[in-house]
């Protein structure tokens, strides 16, 4: 009992030392593992950023090349493509090319647009071609639809603000609509909030009504 009693502290001490050594070893391993993963994440983030930048640059070159090819076509052909094949209204074409509706009417009547405006037409047509190759069923409708329910922001708003890269990332599914809007304007919720909604009235027409529960 005495021996046993005298042995106990020694054994306990050895066991404690062993535990401490093992704990220290495990801690060291975990720390190394943690450090390794942290370093990998950092590298992955850098690589991801590089890939994103590279992708955006390559896509921008692709868009520029497509724009150059489109710009060689007659303005009337481009207008017909946008209105007939893409289903855009003349007013939408005017807005997206940042010209007045009366300017578009003049182009349709045969007045040639300036070089800058012709390029704007070509860019819009090229952009929609690019979107059509992504998982977007109808690029014309896609641009005009609200991005987030109960807010009025649409793809057209971002196109007019020249956020083509963001829109293409969104079309490809790389970012969500809210992420894209956060990048565009951190105050987008206030900017695009509307207290009004469109409802079908009993007479068969549509009416404007104040929202019952606003966000």
């Amino acid at each position, binding site marked *: 009992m005495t021996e046993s009693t005298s042995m106990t502290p020694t054994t306990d001490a050895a066991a404690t030392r062993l535990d401490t050594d093992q704990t220290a070893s495990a801690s060291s391993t975990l720390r190394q593992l943690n450090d390794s993963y942290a370093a990998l994440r950092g590298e992955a983030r850098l690589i991801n950023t590089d890939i994103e930048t590279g992708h955006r640059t390559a896509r921008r070159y692709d868009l520029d090349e497509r724009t150059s090819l489109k710009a060689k076509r007659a303005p009337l052909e481009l207008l017909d493509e946008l*209105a*007939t094949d*893409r*289903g*855009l*209204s003349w007013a939408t074409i005017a807005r997206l090319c940042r010209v007045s509706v009366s300017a578009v009417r003049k182009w349709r009547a045969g007045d040639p647009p300036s070089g800058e405006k012709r390029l704007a037409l070509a860019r819009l047509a090229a952009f929609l071609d690019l979107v059509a190759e992504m998982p977007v069923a109808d690029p014309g409708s896609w641009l*005009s639809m609200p991005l987030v329910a109960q807010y009025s922001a649409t793809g057209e708003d971002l196109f007019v603000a020249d956020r083509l890269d963001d829109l293409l990332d969104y079309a490809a599914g790389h970012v969500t609509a809210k992420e894209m809007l956060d990048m565009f304007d951190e105050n987008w919720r206030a900017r695009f909030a*509307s207290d*009004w909604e469109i409802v079908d009235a009993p007479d068969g*027409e549509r009416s404007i009504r104040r929202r019952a529960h606003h966000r």
Partner: protein
Amino acid sequence: MLDAPDEPEDLWLATDGVPSARPLMQGDVLLGLPIGNDGEAAPGMILTHPCSMRAGKKLRPRQTVAQIVHQPISLEQWAGSHYDFMPLPGLEVPELDAPALDLRLIAAVPTPILVAADRHAALSEIGIHLLQQRLTHHLTRVVVDLKTFAEHSAPTLLEVELQEDWVSEAMRRVKGDADLAEAQQSAENEFQNLLDADDRRLRGMLSQPPTRAQAAREVRTTIRDRRGADGS
């Protein structure tokens, strides 16, 4: 508080005459309407909302218009003053250096005097939304944002565009000795019947953002096919 256009020219679809193929629309300007003092001829603008202009396919017998008067208002003054007016910069009206729509001078006129071919000018979509915003505020003191008006009007305004294209193409194919008025009426009826066919399928598509472009594609493809059919 109220919105203004970036540039005066953004207000206008046309200021030097409007093609007769475009249906009568809110924001159309006509000269010589009997709405001045004692029924004197005066320039005016159609105010009737597009949803109220017609009963079915036919225009209602009377439409509301407001008189255009001289009232200088700068772009900077749009937002916070002159709420009884809709400034009309860029519009050329004889004897009015600074035309503005006086929203207090509203009258109902017989529809037949609003001759589409006699229209002097027409507001653009943005112009119509600005008019709707000022008119709503004038009548109710409620401010509605332009985007709400834009979404509400989108099906009607696209329909107007498509009808103009449809009728223009039909009129281009009319032979020299045909009755032009009859031909235009026939084209307008054909277009409305197209929208109403199959339980108003195209109208339904126009009313919803996800299918609006598809409806426009269908109509314009038919127009293009017709244009191609006669080799032009």
